C-alpha cells in the first residue's frame, strides 16, 4: 500500500468516525418526552353528577380518523382515546384511516366485520365515505359522524360537528365589540386565512365577512396561509407590509398563529389586536397571560371527539343525555363556536389542545 493510499484510508476512517458520532448524537435528539403529562380533553367519569357515568353494559366502540398532519387532527385522536379510557365499560378499537378516502373505506369494512357496538368516524371526506356509513348502519351498527357531515341522513345515527361559519361570526363580533369600545372609526381589518382551497376556510371567511358587512365594515386585506406556522409567518409578514396600520386581525388557526405571532414580534407591530381560531392550549395561555396582541380565540374544539365517544357509549347502551328529556341521544349536534377571552380563559385551559 502506498503512502498516498494509506493517507487516504486514514482520512476515510476519520470521516467515517465523525459520521457515526454525529449519527449517534442525532439519534439522541429525536426524543420529545417532556415533564408535562400529555393533556387531553376528557370529562372524568367520576365527576358526573348523573347516573350516566356509572359503569353500565360493556360496549365496543370502533374509531377511525385520518392520519394527523395538524395539531387539531392529532388532538381528535388523542381525545377520543383518552375519553374511551375514562370509562371502565368501553372497549376502544381504532383502525388506521390511511392516506385517503379509499384507504379509509377499506379500513372501515374491516371494522364493520368485527361488529363493534358503535362506530365513531371522522371521514377524510363526508361525501366519499357516505356509502361506508350506510353500510355500517345497514349492518345494525350506529355511526357517529365527527365534523365532516354525510350528505345522506340514513348514513349516521349522530352527527357532531363544529361551526366554521359560526367561527367567522364569533371572531367578527369580538372585533366589532372591541373596536366600538375603543371608539375606532374606519378601522383597518386584516384576515389571515387557512388553506384557501378548503371549503372550511371559505365558510369561515364568509361568516367573518358577512358579519362585518352587517356592521358596515370590510376586510381590508386577506392573506391565506396553509395551517402551518411558517406559512402563517409569511402571510402575516406580507399582510403587515400591505397595511402599515392595522386595527384588528383575525387569524383562522392557532397553529399557524404561532408563526403569525412570530411575525408580529419580528415586524415590531403592536398597534392592533388579534383574534385566533380553533383554541389551542398555547393560544389560550397567551390570551390569559395577555402579553401578546392575541386577545381572543374562537373555538373549533377537538373536544368534540371526547363528546363523540361519550355519546357513542350512551347510544350503544341505549341511554339518553341526562339533561335532556328525550330517552335517546339527539341526531345532530353542532358545537357553538365559543369566544375565549382573558376573562374566561381559565375555564377553557383544559380544553386547549
Amino acid at each position, binding site marked *: 500500500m502506498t503512502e498516498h493510499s494509506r493517507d487516504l484510508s486514514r482520512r476515510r476512517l476519520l470521516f467515517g468516525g465523525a*459520521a457515526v458520532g454525529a449519527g449517534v448524537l442525532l439519534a439522541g435528539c429525536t426524543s*420529545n418526552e417532556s415533564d408535562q403529562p400529555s393533556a387531553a380533553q376528557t370529562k372524568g367519569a367520576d365527576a358526573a353528577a348523573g347516573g350516566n357515568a356509572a359503569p353500565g353494559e360493556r360496549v365496543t366502540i370502533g374509531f377511525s380518523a385520518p392520519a394527523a398532519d395538524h*395539531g387539531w387532527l392529532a388532538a381528535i385522536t388523542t381525545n377520543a382515546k383518552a375519553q374511551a379510557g375514562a370509562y371502565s365499560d368501553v372497549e376502544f378499537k381504532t383502525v388506521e384511516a390511511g392516506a385517503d378516502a379509499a384507504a379509509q373505506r377499506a379500513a372501515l369494512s374491516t371494522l364493520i366485520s368485527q361488529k363493534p357496538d358503535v362506530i365513531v368516524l371522522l371521514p377524510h371526506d363526508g361525501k366519499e365515505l357516505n356509502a361506508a356509513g350506510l353500510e355500517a348502519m345497514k349492518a345494525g351498527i350506529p355511526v357517529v359522524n365527527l365534523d365532516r357531515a354525510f350528505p345522506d341522513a340514513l348514513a349516521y345515527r349522530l352527527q357532531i360537528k363544529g361551526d366554521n361559519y359560526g367561527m367567522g361570526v364569533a371572531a367578527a363580533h369580538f372585533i366589532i365589540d372591541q373596536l366600538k369600545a375603543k371608539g375606532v372609526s374606519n378601522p383597518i381589518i386584516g384576515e389571515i386565512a387557512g388553506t384557501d382551497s378548503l371549503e372550511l376556510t371559505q365558510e369561515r371567511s364568509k361568516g367573518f365577512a358577512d358579519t362585518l358587512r352587517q356592521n358596515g365594515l370590510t376586510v*381590508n386585506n386577506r392573506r391565506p396561509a396553509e395551517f402551518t*406556522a411558517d406559512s402563517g409567518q409569511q402571510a402575516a*409578514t*406580507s399582510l403587515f*407590509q400591505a397595511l402599515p396600520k392595522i386595527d384588528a386581525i383575525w387569524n383562522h388557526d392557532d397553529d399557524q398563529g*404561532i408563526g403569525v405571532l412570530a411575525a408580529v414580534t419580528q415586524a415590531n407591530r403592536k398597534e392592533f389586536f388579534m383574534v385566533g381560531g380553533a383554541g389551542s392550549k398555547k393560544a389560550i395561555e397567551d390570551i390569559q397571560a395577555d402579553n401578546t396582541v392575541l386577545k381572543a380565540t374562537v373555538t373549533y374544539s377537538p373536544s368534540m371527539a371526547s363528546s363523540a365517544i361519550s355519546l357513542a357509549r350512551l347510544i350503544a347502551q341505549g341511554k339518553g343525555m341526562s339533561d335532556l328529556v328525550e330517552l335517546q341521544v339527539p341526531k345532530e349536534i353542532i358545537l357553538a363556536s365559543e369566544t375565549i377571552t382573558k376573562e374566561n380563559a381559565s375555564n377553557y385551559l383544559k380544553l386547549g389542545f
Partner: protein
Amino acid sequence: MSDVTDTSTPERPAQLPAQSPPVDPAETAAAEQRGAGRLSWWRGEGGEGARRNLWLIGVLVALIVIGVITRPDLYGDSSWVWSNILVILKLASVVGVVTVGMTFVIIGGGIDLSVGAIVALAGVWATTVATQSYGAGGMIFCALAVGLGVGLVNGVLISYGRLVPFIATLAMLVAARGLAAELSDKQTQVSENTTINGIASTNLLGIPLLVYILAAVVLAGWVLLNRTTFGRRTVAVGGNPEAARLAGIDVKRHTVLLYALSGLCCGIAAIMLTAQATSAQAAMANLYELDAIAAAIIGGTLLSGGRGTIIGSLLGVIIFSTITNLFAINGLTTEAQNMVKGGIIVAAVLVQQVQFRSLTQFLGRNRLTTN
C-alpha cells in the same frame, strides 16, 4: 449583414466587438469562423450570464413600477419603501438559500425534489425537546447535520445505487416528511430558544440578520461555482458527464457532494425558517422544491445541466418574492398570484428558446450567404 442583425435579435449591437479575433483567410470554413466571431460576444464568458440577468432585472423593475402605479400611497413613503425592500429580501431568504443548493444540483445534471422535506425534517429534528435541551448550538448543529446527512443519502442512492435523481429524491421527499411527522408526533413544535428565535428578529445596521445569511450563502455559492475546482467540476459533470469522467474527474463522488451541499443548504434554511416561525412542523416548507426549481430555471439554469448562475437564481427567487409582495399590497388573491408566477416561468423559458433560435437562424443564414 444589418438585416440579419435586425430581424434576429434587436438587442445585439450592429458591429463586432473590438476583441473579436482576426479571421484567418486560409481557414476553409470561413463562414463558420465569422459566425464564431459573433458568438464569442454572444456566448462568451460572463457576457451571456450578464445579459440574461439584465432581462431578469428588467422584470424586477417592471414589477416595482407596477407597484408604484398601483399603490402610490405606499411608495410615496420612503421609509416604507426601504422596509418593503427588506421584507422582500427576508421573504426570499429561506427559499433563496435552498435555491443556491438546488442550482448546484441542477447545473450538475441532477434535480432535488426533497429540499422542502429536508427543511421540514431538519427543522423538526432541531426542535425536539431533547435537541432544544442542548441550546442554540445543539439545534444548529442538529439541523445542519440532518440536512447534510439526508443529502448524502440522496447522493449515494443516485451515484452508487444508480437511481434516477427524480425517483431517488421523490422517495426522499415522501420518506423525510414521514419521518418528520413521526418525530414531531404531528404536532407543531414550538422553539423556546430565544437565540434561535432571535435570528429572525435581529437587525444589524438596520438590515435583518436573515438577509445577511442569504447574502453570505449566495456569496459562498458564487465563489464556489465560479472560483473553485468544485464549481468547475460541477459544470463539467453536468455539461458532459462522460467527458468529465474521461478527464479523470470522479463523477460519482462529485454527484454525492452536490446532493450533500443541497442538503446542507436545506439545513441552514431549516434554522432560518424555524427562527421565523418560532416553531417547526412536518408540513413546513411546503412545495419549496418547486419554488427553488422554478427560481433556478427563471435564473437561466439549464434543466439538463451544465449551465447556470447563482446570481440568476437569486434574481429568480427575488422576482417571486416581489410578486408575492405586489399581490399582497394590492390585496389580490393568491390564485391570481400563482397564475402570474406560472406565466413568468413559461416566459423565461420562451425567452431562452427565442435567444437560442435566433442564434441558430443567424448562423444558418450566414453560412448560406457565403457559400
